[in-house]
């Protein structure tokens, strides 16, 4: 265990340090001349401060569609989690394993069909 995941752990440590090196290097090489309009939030050439207060609120109201797609994603992600060990074991199992998986898939496809039917898979 430790021989293989020890290397992954080592990799993780290096992977965390690695992006910090160019950032640190750039810190010594780059100029630093901040001014007010440079530090402003980018807004297509307009001054951010001139906006009315409610328009300065960046947190726009997102559409519910985002949540629906995340829901579909969660459901199918879990399906995948069950599919992988089944796929590994399938060779040594019989046809009944395929039948059971088809039942499982059909039930989940009903979820997809429901969302499809209700027009939830349309972005507009």
């Amino acid at each position, binding site marked *: 265990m430790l021989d293989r995941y020890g290397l992954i752990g080592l990799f993780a440590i290096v992977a965390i340090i690695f992006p910090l090196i160019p950032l640190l290097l750039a810190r010594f090489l780059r100029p630093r001349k901040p001014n007010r309009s440079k530090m402003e939030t980018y807004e297509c050439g307009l001054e951010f401060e001139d906006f009315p207060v409610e328009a300065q609120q960046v947190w726009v109201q997102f559409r*519910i569609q985002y*949540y629906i797609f995340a*829901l579909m994603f*969660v*459901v199918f*992600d*879990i399906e995948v*989690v*069950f599919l992988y060990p089944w796929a590994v074991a399938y060779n040594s199992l019989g046809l009944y394993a395929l039948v059971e998986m088809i039942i499982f898939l059909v039930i989940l496809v009903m979820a997809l069909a429901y969302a499809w039917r209700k027009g939830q898979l349309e972005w507009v």
Partner: protein
Amino acid sequence: MIPLPYFLLLGAAVFCIGLFAALARRNAVAILMGIELMLNAVNINLVAFWRYTKPGTPTWDLAGQIFALFVITLAAAEAAIGLALIIAIYRSRDTVNVEDVDIMKW
């Protein structure tokens, strides 16, 4: 190997932190996060007990891991429904503070 109680203590700590977050946070989404933490603590215990039951003996099977798998499934379903409820409440009452949602109180 590390003795079993280490993992049990970690599970207990995570569970209690989750319990505190679920009971004390005002924000409904944070309450849900606390519940997810509690479910994680349960999973730590399940997997730890699976690992430390004697391998090779008749009682040793994969029950712990498979239970953990089903708990994760359940956690996902719970999060999906819980967050949908929070969004629905937000859309009708414009708040996610659980103390403001009290029409069922009396």
